[in-house]
């Protein structure tokens, strides 16, 4: 018979809290202390009610899983407060450990979209910068005839093209900015939605 499972040593209070603490690495001291205190108090009161340590630990669930959830909650909170690529990546990586982001179906499209956004951003930038370069070239051309050749295009036309290009680039950037904001929000929403689903058999 397979009794691999029953041979696993039972966790007591000390092992539970140690394992939890180990898996909470990276959190701020305060957050970590608060979380550990909650579970420690749970053990103390449980023992007062004549429960065995191992029984309490078992009912609490897997400390590794608990730590992952706690980390994700805090990462989401941070990402909501301050929008940054670093913060949203932390949310994604924390979710990975919990299996919220199915590797093939979610991570692929996520990075695909991220790539597109970066591409759009780069396009906006280069459009704006080329527009500005053309305007500058228009100003400098009469002064530096030997360096800048306008190819016989009249100056007003040069300025028109430059201004047009620069403003189009700026609009493009603004548009991309809004799309990115939406993408950020949807990603957080998706993770939070997953957080709301409990798997009652977590091990």
């Amino acid at each position, binding site marked *: 018979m397979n009794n691999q499972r029953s041979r696993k040593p039972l966790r007591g209070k000390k092992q539970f809290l140690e394992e939890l603490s180990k898996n909470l690495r990276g959190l701020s001291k305060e957050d970590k202390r608060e979380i550990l205190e909650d*579970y420690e*108090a749970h053990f103390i009161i449980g023992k007062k009610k004549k429960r065995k340590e191992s029984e309490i630990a078992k*009912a609490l669930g897997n400390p590794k899983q608990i730590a992952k*959830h706690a980390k994700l909650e805090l990462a989401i909170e941070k990402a909501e407060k301050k929008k940054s690529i670093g913060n949203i990546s932390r949310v994604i990586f924390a979710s990975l450990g919990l299996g919220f982001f199915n590797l093939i179906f979610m991570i692929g499209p996520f990075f695909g979209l991220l790539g597109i956004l970066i591409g759009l951003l780069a396009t906006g930038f280069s459009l704006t910068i080329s527009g500005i370069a053309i305007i500058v070239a228009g100003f400098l051309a009469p002064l530096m005839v030997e360096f800048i050749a306008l190819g016989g295009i009249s100056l007003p036309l040069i300025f028109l093209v430059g201004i047009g290009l620069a403003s189009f680039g700026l609009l493009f950037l603004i548009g991309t900015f809004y799309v990115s904001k939406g993408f950020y929000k949807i990603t957080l929403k998706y993770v939070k939605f997953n957080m*709301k689903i*409990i798997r009652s058999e977590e091990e």
Partner: protein
Amino acid sequence: MDTQFKKGVLDLCVIAILKKHDCYGYELVQKISKTIAISEGTLYPILRRLKKEGYLETYLQESNEGPSRKYYSLTKKGKEKGKKLKEDWKDFEKKVDKILK
């Protein structure tokens, strides 16, 4: 409701219990896990979140058996949230009932 259900329901359970009287964490966990099969550990993150969102507050109170305990109580915002969650739940219940009939 054995494998997957929404934590929103747990939010409602916590708030409903605290509406009757303040509780310490262990007490709340026992009350809920007696009826709904969840790992007892799942409730603490919910309590922390509800507190951070301003629905609950905590205070320490002496206990005659051991160290002082952290009690949770509903804030005004929490009471309002409870009302809204309860309405949502009743509405949902009605709809499911309609289908069951």
